[in-house]
């Protein structure tokens, strides 16, 4: 009997050690995953001190350019936060012409496509722009193609690929103004506000169109939030008006001394606080 008890005790001890080992291993894995994920706000202290994750500042994590992997054909995003300012386009065309395209201060949005006559990926976009009606752009989006100026890009080469129904502006300064990292690159500008709504690139038109759809969805979501915020303001306004009416009915007019306590020890303030404590159940039951 004693032998059986001893064997069982040993078995329980071994199993306990196994479970503890598993728990320890699980904890190590979770901690490694946590560190890879950027760490929690406030950081995690380790036995060796503060972990690298904890050393990062709180808030959204900034992804450096070196951490972004893109297709070989696609430009990496520019290393900056936020969008650039928009500006109108002034340059020359491919038919020995000079032209301006208004991007800001207009009712529509403009999709500025920065393309080159020599990059292979751009050829897909030149082809896509040959039939702008098949691009599937929203009605309020005007496509405009911008290439480098004649000093850097061959007008003859651009003329061979330029679509007939989409304006082409040869303007090197626009590339600098919009901080374009390379071609192909697309910037969507809202003409009313003059703000850049989105920018990015892709290996073909379907990818770029996906970016545009995302911008559209984000804008719709923002509008939805805005409409909800307005309704909340109305509720606040109604509540404020109701309180004013009740105070006026009680003879408390604007500037009444009872509205301004002198401090925490002010007896009127204490009495006012006492009244509110009595009012609270009524507030909760008020429809």
């Amino acid at each position, binding site marked *: 009997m004693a032998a059986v008890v001893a064997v069982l005790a040993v078995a329980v001890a071994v199993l306990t050690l196994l479970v503890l080992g598993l728990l320890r291993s699980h904890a190590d894995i979770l901690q490694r995953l946590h560190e890879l994920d950027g760490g929690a706000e406030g950081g995690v202290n380790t036995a060796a001190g503060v972990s690298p994750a904890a050393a990062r500042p709180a808030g959204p994590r900034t992804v450096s350019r070196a951490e972004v992997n893109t297709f070989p054909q696609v430009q990496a995003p520019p290393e900056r936060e936020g969008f650039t300012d928009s500006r109108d386009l002034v340059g020359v065309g491919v*038919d*020995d012409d000079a*032209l*301006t395209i*208004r991007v800001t*201060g207009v009712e529509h949005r403009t999709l500025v496509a920065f393309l080159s006559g020599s990059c292979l990926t751009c050829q897909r976009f030149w082809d896509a722009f040959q039939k702008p009606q098949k691009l599937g752009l929203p009605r309020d989006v005007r496509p405009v193609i911008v290439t480098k100026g004649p000093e850097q890009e061959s007008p003859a080469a651009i003329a061979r690929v330029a679509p007939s*129904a989409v304006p082409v502006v040869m303007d090197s300064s626009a590339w600098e103004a919009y901080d374009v990292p390379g071609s192909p690159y697309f910037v969507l500008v809202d003409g009313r506000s003059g703000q850049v709504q989105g920018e990015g690139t892709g290996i073909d038109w379907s990818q770029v169109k996906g970016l545009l759809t995302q911008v559209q969805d984000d804008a719709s979501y923002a509008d939805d939030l805005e409409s909800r915020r307005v309704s909340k303001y109305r509720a606040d306004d109604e509540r404020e008006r109701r309180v004013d009416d009740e105070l006026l009915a009680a003879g408390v007019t604007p500037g009444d001394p009872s509205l301004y306590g002198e401090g925490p020890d002010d007896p009127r303030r204490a009495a006012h606080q006492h009244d509110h404590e009595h009012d609270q159940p009524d507030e909760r039951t008020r429809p």
Partner: protein
Amino acid sequence: MRIEAHGIRAELPSGWEGRISRRQAGTLTGARTRNGTTEVVGEDTAPVLHMGNFALPEDRGDFGSGAVDLMGTGHLLVVLVEYGPDSVGTALYPTVSSVPRLTSRMFSSQALQRVQRGQAGAQRFFTMNGRAFCLYAVVGDQREVGAMATTANDVTRQIAITTR
């Protein structure tokens, strides 16, 4: 914003865009009859200036066909078309020192190159610095002719033409 090409310079007000281009080769300036036979006067690739306070479409004619279809209330199109040396200094193209002004009385639906319901147009022919031009303006809504004539003059006053 300024555009300049082919000896024409224009300043564009806020909200306007424009283009100075050459007529496509093959554009015929007209025909004349001599000794009972009709002969082509010649091809002309003289410059054309288009300015509008709306997004100008790519597919448009010298006198704004294609663009006028998109025009509505508040829209104004200003066109400057150069003609050949044969026209310089002729009775139809009097010599002036600056681009002629347009008055609201000059605007009429009859003056449109292509009649569009509700629109009105006006045109002036002139020679300036040895070059013959036609100034043509279209108002998207003829009820706004008064204000638009003033705007058109503000824009054309900024046009500079140099000798060739």
